[in-house]
């Protein structure tokens, strides 16, 4: 049994490799289809670059070779986890990414956990009060949040909590110059995390709430809920043990999808809140045609998303014993 699960894990991990490589290859060619390259950008920044100089830059970056050669060189390096050097910043791409990745991962994980927890609690609460005013209130609120753009919500949260109430920081990840260490540092980061994580999470809270409510109501219609009542269990116990675990699968599925979306969504939120994560790095790399950096980020983020989906599959198995990983 345990051995079978381990085998499943190894196989799934191996499956990740071709998927990620395919994504990288696709990205490589898609990015090349856009006109202009980093040499154009650099030349433009210098203002008086000659055509020879631009060509020289291309030669230096290896951009003058045929596309297929460039591709194989890139993929060859990738297999040794060499993501190359950022054309613009002249720093290894992996260094730039590892510098930013933790901030983004913290933000994403916090907002996923926040969204799932809040969505589940609200969804269960609404389902248990189906048809009451509380149920309608939760549903309407969810709809309003669902329809609100994240960046606008972020700005409004800053206005309310940072400017009017002055209880939360408006941006950044740490208090600059405080030089905090250990637990105090972690607390400081958590403090700065609240608004951006809430902004990223709220849209999904709305979706999870709706999804959880519907899923719970479906489970409430099943026979084993009557059995649980006939056993003498309280409605609270029935909701949180018998119904919840059966109703959770769709939410877990969506959490995997959310993880992928968040990488995109975090660009906006990281910009609004000045959060030093991958989102801003992507944005800059895209504007400046920093191909190596862009490909590196896409490689890492696709690996993160594919891994997140693996985790979702594993959670399925934990939640529902009928799902057996073979």
């Amino acid at each position, binding site marked *: 049994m345990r051995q079978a699960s381990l085998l499943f894990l190894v196989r799934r991990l191996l499956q990740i490799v071709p998927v990620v490589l395919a994504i990288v290859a696709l990205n490589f060619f898609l990015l090349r289809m856009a006109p202009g390259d980093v040499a154009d950008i650099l030349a433009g920044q210098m203002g008086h670059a000659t055509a020879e100089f631009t060509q020289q830059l291309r030669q230096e970056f290896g951009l003058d070779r045929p596309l297929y050669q460039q591709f194989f060189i890139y993929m060859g390096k990738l297999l040794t986890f060499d993501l190359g050097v950022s054309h613009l910043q002249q720093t290894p791409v992996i260094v730039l990414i590892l510098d930013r990745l933790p901030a983004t991962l913290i933000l994403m994980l916090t907002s996923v956990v926040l969204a799932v927890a809040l969505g589940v609690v609200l969804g269960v609460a609404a389902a248990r009060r189906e048809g009451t005013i509380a149920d309608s209130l939760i549903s309407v609120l969810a709809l309003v949040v669902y329809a609100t753009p994240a960046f606008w919500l972020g700005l409004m949260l800053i206005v309310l909590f940072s400017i009017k109430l002055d209880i939360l920081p408006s941006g950044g990840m740490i208090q600059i110059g405080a030089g905090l260490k250990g637990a105090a540092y972690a607390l400081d980061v958590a403090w700065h995390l609240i608004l951006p994580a809430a902004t990223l999470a709220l849209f999904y809270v709305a979706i999870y709430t709706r999804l959880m409510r519907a899923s719970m109501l479906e489970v409430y219609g*099943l*026979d*084993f809920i*009557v*059995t*649980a*009542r*006939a*056993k*003498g*269990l*309280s409605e609270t116990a029935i909701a949180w043990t*018998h119904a919840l*675990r*059966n109703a959770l699968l769709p939410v877990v599925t969506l959490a995997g999808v959310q993880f992928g979306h968040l990488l995109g969504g975090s660009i906006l939120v990281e910009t609004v809140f000045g959060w030093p994560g991958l989102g801003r790095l992507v944005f800059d790399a895209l504007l400046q045609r920093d191909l190596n950096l862009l490909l590196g980020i896409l490689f890492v983020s696709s690996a993160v998303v594919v891994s997140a989906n693996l985790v979702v599959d594993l959670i399925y198995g934990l*939640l*529902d*014993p*009928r799902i057996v990983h073979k």
Partner: protein
Amino acid sequence: MSAPVLAVDGLTVEFRTALGTVRAVDDLSFTIGEGETVAIVGESGSGKSTVALALLRLVPDPPGRIVAGRVRLDRQDLLTLDDAEIRKVRGRRMAMIFQDPMMALNPVYTVERQIGEVLRLHLGLPRQQVFDQVVELLRLVGVPAPEDRARQYPHNLSGGMRQRVMIAMALACKPRLLIADEPTTALDVTVQAQVLELIQELKSRLGMAVLLITHDLSIVAETAHRVIVMYTGRKVEEGATAEIFADPRHPYTGGLLGAAKWEENEGNELREIPGAVPSPFDMPRGCSFAPRCAVALARCREHAPALADVAPGRPVRCFVAQEAAR
């Protein structure tokens, strides 16, 4: 004579729907003594399953409501108890098994967890004793390799095994009354007999009273001491099983027996009761069975007959039968 285990008096259950109020159970009275098995038989829509749910106060409200009557278990009126008090009755003093054991067990929890839940809830058994007790119960209901089965999930078990698990769960607290709602309908014929035998055996061993709810007259003949025949929410006939089978007084009972005993009919012909159960929204003015009745008089279509004894312990709701007895 000692007081009956269960005494139902004038039980009336209504469902409010968009089309109007429906009386699913109408002024039903009966008793079950210690060690006695009473069967309620009737077609779908006769209200028999609603009776089962109403006894445990599990009729979904809304739309259902118990509008009148008394349900006394060992002289205690269940309909006046508050929510916490009735929960102490459910699963402990009055337990229920359901038609479809696949649907009635929670798919995501082990057998041990689902049976053990009752033991912990009602008997406050500590965790380490729960497993032993669950194994003991599984052994009692004839589950082979109970230690292994206890750790398995419902989907690992066959239909017959699942129903045994349901029975073990219902018997966990040695209830005074066991309600079996179509306990064998979803099972193979060979398994049906085993499950019925098991219920009978445990009944005498534990001194329970059993309320058997079924549409299947063959299992009634083998297991029940007394039979209550229901039609459109009303009791139309009651009597000792042997008497009912030998000498049905109500034309509906006669029809049910005729339909069930087709093997004995001339030329093995399948006999059925003509017509269908009337819509609850369009009940006939007189006797609700009159439109399907071969012996109905003009009076039957105008006035609804009341229950009256045609012999000692043989109440029948039929003008014709009452006339004949006079």
